[in-house]
């Protein structure tokens, strides 16, 4: 070995390796594998450092299971749609208008008055934002009440009994309208918003008959309905997901008296 090479080797040996000094607030070990995941919390966010991508996937899966992240992800999706809709030109109601004055059908529990909007206003529904989904992030979105009907009894029953069978206290109603309602053709609107990716699937995945009181985040279907309501209309007409080719109708009412004035309910 020559002298020059020996000198270089000595120099290299003297150089100390640079070490990164990190202020680790908390660290977590999420699996028994040899790879550890260190989560560092800094003021501007959380940084995750992993050496094995497989561990990262399992880590993400474990976080996804938590309700908090589900809610955050839904909020992000809703926020994205909300901002996108804000930038659009107002839709022309006359292009999407459907006038309706035929009889409708509704199935609901005897515990609740068929014309009562209280539950709808507090819990929300597929298209109407309720108090449960009211968030400070979306202060523009205001809760409103809507009653849901189907154009035929079979569809109403199918929509209602998808989650559990009919009980002795579930009443079937035939509803006659005292006036004509101008409705938004909701599906036509969704088709016209084709620039937004997977909007149809996202909207259709929102259930009609669900425990909406447990839903604490505005859903995309509700955001679109809120946006449309600002431009007029008495409600929405949309295709049933439970009875193909048949339609459901959501009528907007201010209060119980408004609903009583406009509708007549008959138990069948």
């Amino acid at each position, binding site marked *: 070995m020559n002298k020059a090479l020996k000198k270089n080797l000595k120099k290299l040996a003297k150089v100390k390796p640079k070490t990164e000094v990190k202020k680790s607030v908390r660290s977590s070990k999420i699996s028994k594998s040899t790879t550890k995941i260190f989560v560092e919390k800094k003021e501007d966010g959380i940084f995750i450092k992993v050496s094995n991508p497989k561990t990262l996937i399992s880590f993400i899966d474990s976080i996804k299971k938590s309700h908090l992240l589900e809610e955050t992800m839904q909020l992000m999706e809703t926020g994205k749609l909300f901002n996108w809709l804000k930038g659009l030109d107002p839709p022309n109601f006359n292009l999407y208008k459907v006038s309706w004055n035929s009889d409708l059908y509704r199935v609901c529990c005897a515990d609740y008055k068929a014309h009562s909007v209280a539950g709808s206003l507090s819990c929300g529904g597929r298209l109407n934002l309720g108090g449960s989904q009211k968030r400070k992030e979306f202060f523009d979105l205001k809760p409103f009440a809507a009653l849901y009907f189907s154009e035929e009894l079979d569809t109403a029953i199918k929509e209602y009994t998808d989650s559990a069978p009919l009980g002795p*206290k579930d009443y079937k109603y035939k509803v006659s309208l005292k006036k004509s309602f101008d409705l938004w053709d909701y599906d036509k609107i969704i088709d016209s918003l084709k620039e937004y990716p997977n909007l149809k699937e996202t909207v259709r995945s929102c259930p009609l008959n669900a425990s909406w009181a447990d839903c604490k985040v505005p859903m995309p279907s509700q955001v679109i309905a809120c946006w449309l309501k600002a431009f007029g209309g008495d409600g929405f007409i949309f295709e049933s997901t439970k009875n193909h080719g048949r339609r459901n109708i959501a009528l907007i009412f201010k209060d119980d008296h408004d609903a009583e004035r406009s509708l007549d309910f008959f138990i069948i």
Partner: protein
Amino acid sequence: MLINNFKSNPASHFQNVLGLLSPKDSNKLIPNRLLEITGYSKTLLAKELKSSRPLMYREEIDLRSLAQLRTGVFQLVCASDLIFDLFKFNDPEAKIYQKLPIEVLHKLQAETERWIMSPNQFLFGKSPFEVCISGSGKELIHWLASKLGREISKDVA
């Protein structure tokens, strides 16, 4: 099944149609029955119940000292009792008999078990088992009870 005013011992008012609670002491869970219904492994079930795996090897688990698990199990038993009655109400065969024949009973139990484990639209795609065992079955129980015209005590939901 009247599940009202039972602050002392809610478990004694359950029908326990799926046999999740011990017939001798209704404050004890039979983990093997829960394993059968869910089809889960012992490890997975212990994870779902947020309890330890060795507990799953016991014949019975005393729920008196496990408050969180107790709430979850009671909600599950209550929901399964209510849905069983709803299936019974809709079954033409069940309407004929005063006392259910064993075949009809098994059929209704199977329907109840299937419903308990299936994703439900009412619960935004979660299964009633998932929701109840986590202790969030209040809305579901009240909804099922209202369909049957029953009242539910605050002790359960």
